[in-house]
């Protein structure tokens, strides 16, 4: 049995499966969010006034996952959330924990990182004397965040302060 054949059969039996899988993905993100925040499930239950069983049900995607439920969990760990729509081929929106690891991953691949740039934050180090030349990225730096490509051609624009339009 191949994956394709299995999925085709499941879809035929249950046309609502893609929606159910989307709910499972959101629940997994919530479970990761709670784990990354460092709060225990017991503490989360206390904070929300829920039973421990309800927390488990919500974070496993087996309960009724509503916007209100997601908002309550996000708020309990000090965050908010947006629903971000995208075209299928567009880069997926990164979660906070993914932004950190993706940046680190790209740093490892960056062999020609200038010596004056921090390997941790990918920004010029404050202890170094900076010249206008230093403010411009050189080499093949490029990463995508929130759907925008960030590279040497637009670094100044992306990092500079821009007055809000009135």
């Amino acid at each position, binding site marked *: 049995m191949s994956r394709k054949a299995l999925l085709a059969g499941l879809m035929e039996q249950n046309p609502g499966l*893609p929606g159910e899988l989307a709910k*499972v993905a959101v629940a997994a993100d919530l479970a990761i969010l709670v784990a990354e925040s460092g709060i225990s499930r017991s503490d989360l239950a206390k904070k929300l006034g829920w039973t421990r069983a309800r927390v488990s049900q919500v974070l496993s995607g087996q309960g009724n996952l509503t916007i209100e439920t997601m908002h309550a969990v996000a708020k309990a760990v000090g965050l908010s959330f947006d629903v971000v729509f995208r075209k*299928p081929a567009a880069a997926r929106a990164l979660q906070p*924990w993914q932004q950190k690891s993706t940046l680190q991953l790209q740093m490892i691949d960056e062999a020609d990182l200038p010596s004056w740039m921090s390997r941790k934050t990918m920004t010029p180090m404050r202890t170094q004397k900076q010249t206008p030349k230093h403010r411009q990225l050189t080499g093949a730096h490029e990463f995508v965040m929130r759907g925008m490509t960030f590279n040497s051609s637009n670094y100044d624009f992306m990092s500079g302060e821009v007055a809000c339009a009135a």
Partner: protein
Amino acid sequence: MYFLTELNADDFLPDSERANSSPALLAAKRCRVSSRCATKDRDSAGVWTQIQALKANDQAAGFKSLAYFVQIAQNGPPLTRHLDKKQVHEAHEFVSVVSGKLEKVWRYRRGDIRILFYYGNRAVLLLVDLLAKRSDKLEPAVLNSAEMAVNAYLSATKSNAVLLVD
């Protein structure tokens, strides 16, 4: 040769969506949830056959459970950080005839679905079995099959016969 493939979030998308979708992000620190393949084709992974072998009512639940498990595992070890003890715990231990050591098979539980897995080398999380159970006691045949799956993996690793299939 022992063919092994790593599962990712895209494996749970219908092919029409998968072809147009940007690839899922893979963090370097992830657990590599992997299944043994019958052939060089990664669609021949054994876990799809295991889901197909479930009763019709359990197949969608098995598929969703696996999707959730893969997403959680991709945030990196330990799984117990994201899942409580009731959900993920040691299920069986045995002395392997291949390694001569005590090896442990773990279980992820979601509703009636049980996923048995083994922590292999280099962050590989080997899927050993996926089954539907109405009780927690695993039958001798299931345990025996799990031991054989782990031994086959250890044997292939020992003889450098593992071929990763993309």
